[in-house]
């Protein structure tokens, strides 16, 4: 591996993905708006301009025992995401032996765990801090402990991490089983990707896993897992309007909120990019082949937008069986792959 490709990849890939990711919320919102038979916001509004707007807002100190740490969390999230992304590039495939699915799965878990910290580190005005003379008028109230929305959300994240991410992991491992290796580059190579020289012309010589039976089943499991990681409907119980409003992110304002938005956008695109790498066999490379990669990265967000437009938020009563079902699907995928 030459150092110049390594440096180039490290410099270019995050910037390009970063820039492209700001469009995605707008596209998703537009799709939903069209399903809802309305015009909806311009594509740049929800992702792109909103971030700049937040950057220019007055900076405030969040109500948090550790404001600095609280503000740092989304930034950590962004770095995590781009680190994961870089690990899937051919240039980084040799780095410390980290470019494996196990490492990525672990990092995604860390990313999810950030929400638990966020939830425990803040307290917005909307629940326990609301200035309102609460009176007890006969309700049975033993414990004086009051739980804020953020804490409720943190608990939910914890539950979601423990049960909800199996589909994602299984979805990640189906290609690994098929390729017989947990290294990302071998999964890509199995589908016909040639690390040494890959040009835009070579795309048609790829034979994506997606179009095999186990690949298809695994991909479905991956999509379900994708929704869970994103906390998108129907798995948005951690920040549902039905009770906890925005959950862990309630206290982010101004720059920190911009960072939070960016973290979400990064998750949207990076998790989608991993899907493209694993199931189409096209990892992000510096060169013209990046363009089809980025276009393919839209597939999952679009699917998520459509699914979320037609589903209510699910409570754990539905999440358990559903995630169980998706896990079973993933297992079927793995079994098919082994066969």
């Amino acid at each position, binding site marked *: 591996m030459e150092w110049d490709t390594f440096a180039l990849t490290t410099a270019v890939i995050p910037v390009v993905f970063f820039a492209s990711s700001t469009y995605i919320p707008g596209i998703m919102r537009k799709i939903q*708006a069209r399903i809802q038979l*309305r015009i909806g*916001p311009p594509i740049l509004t929800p992702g792109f301009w909103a971030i700049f707007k937040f950057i220019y807002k007055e900076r405030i100190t969040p109500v948090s025992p550790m404001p600095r740490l609280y503000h740092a969390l989304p930034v950590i999230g962004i770095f995590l995401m781009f680190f994961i992304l870089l690990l899937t590039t051919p240039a980084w495939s040799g780095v410390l032996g980290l470019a494996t699915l196990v490492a990525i799965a672990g990092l995604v878990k860390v990313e999810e765990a950030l929400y638990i910290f966020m939830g425990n580190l803040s307290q*917005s005005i909307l629940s326990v801090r609301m200035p309102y003379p609460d009176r007890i008028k006969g309700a049975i109230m033993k414990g004086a402990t009051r739980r804020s929305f953020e804490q409720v959300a943190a608990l939910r994240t914890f539950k979601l991490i423990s049960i909800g991410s199996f589909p994602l992991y299984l979805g990640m491992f189906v290609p690994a089983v098929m390729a017989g290796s947990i290294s990302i580059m071998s999964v890509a190579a199995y589908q016909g990707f040639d690390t040494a020289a890959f040009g835009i012309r070579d795309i048609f010589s790829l034979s994506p896993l997606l179009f095999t039976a186990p690949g298809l089943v695994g991909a479905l499991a991956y999509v379900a897992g994708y929704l869970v990681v994103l906390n998108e409907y129907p798995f948005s119980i951690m920040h549902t309007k039905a009770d906890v409003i925005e959950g862990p992110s309630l206290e982010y304002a101004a720059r920190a909120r911009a960072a939070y938005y960016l973290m979400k956008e990064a998750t949207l695109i990076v998790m989608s990019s991993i899907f493209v790498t694993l199931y189409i066999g096209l990892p992000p490379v510096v060169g013209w082949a990046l363009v089809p990669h980025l276009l393919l990265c839209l597939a999952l967000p679009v699917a998520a937008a459509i699914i979320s437009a037609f589903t209510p938020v699910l409570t754990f009563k539905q999440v358990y069986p559903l995630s169980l079902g998706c896990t079973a699907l993933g297992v079927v995928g793995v079994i098919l792959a082994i066969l």
Partner: protein
Amino acid sequence: MLKEISRKNAVHIMLVYTGGCNGCDIEVVNAVMSPFYDMEQYKVMLTWNPREADILAVTGPVTKKFEKALKEIYEAIPEPKLVAAIGTCAITGGPYANLGGDLGSSDQIIGGVAKVIPVDANIPGCPPRPEDILQAVASVIPLLAGKR
């Protein structure tokens, strides 16, 4: 430059119902939720979080119970921020404050929103129609951009 453009292109609005009759509230919700009106097309998005909001839309007269909460919610919004008083009640206290005439106004309400927090736009009507609300909101956005 970028500041002004971005502020004009992404606006978050938060609703607070301070104890009106629901009439104004419904019309605001209608302006947001009804595809016929569709507030988002004017780049205005609904939020329930003061930390994210730019415009605070208040409906109803401020009842004594609500005064403190309203103030704190207003303070939680980072600058620049605007307040829109929607409906007669939010402007002057409406019938609850004025209909009594010699009998005096209700002692349960403080009155219009302006008595509690500074107001930037008054939208008359009982309740204002969704189109009135949308036009008013769309027309105050430049104020937001002009702020520090």
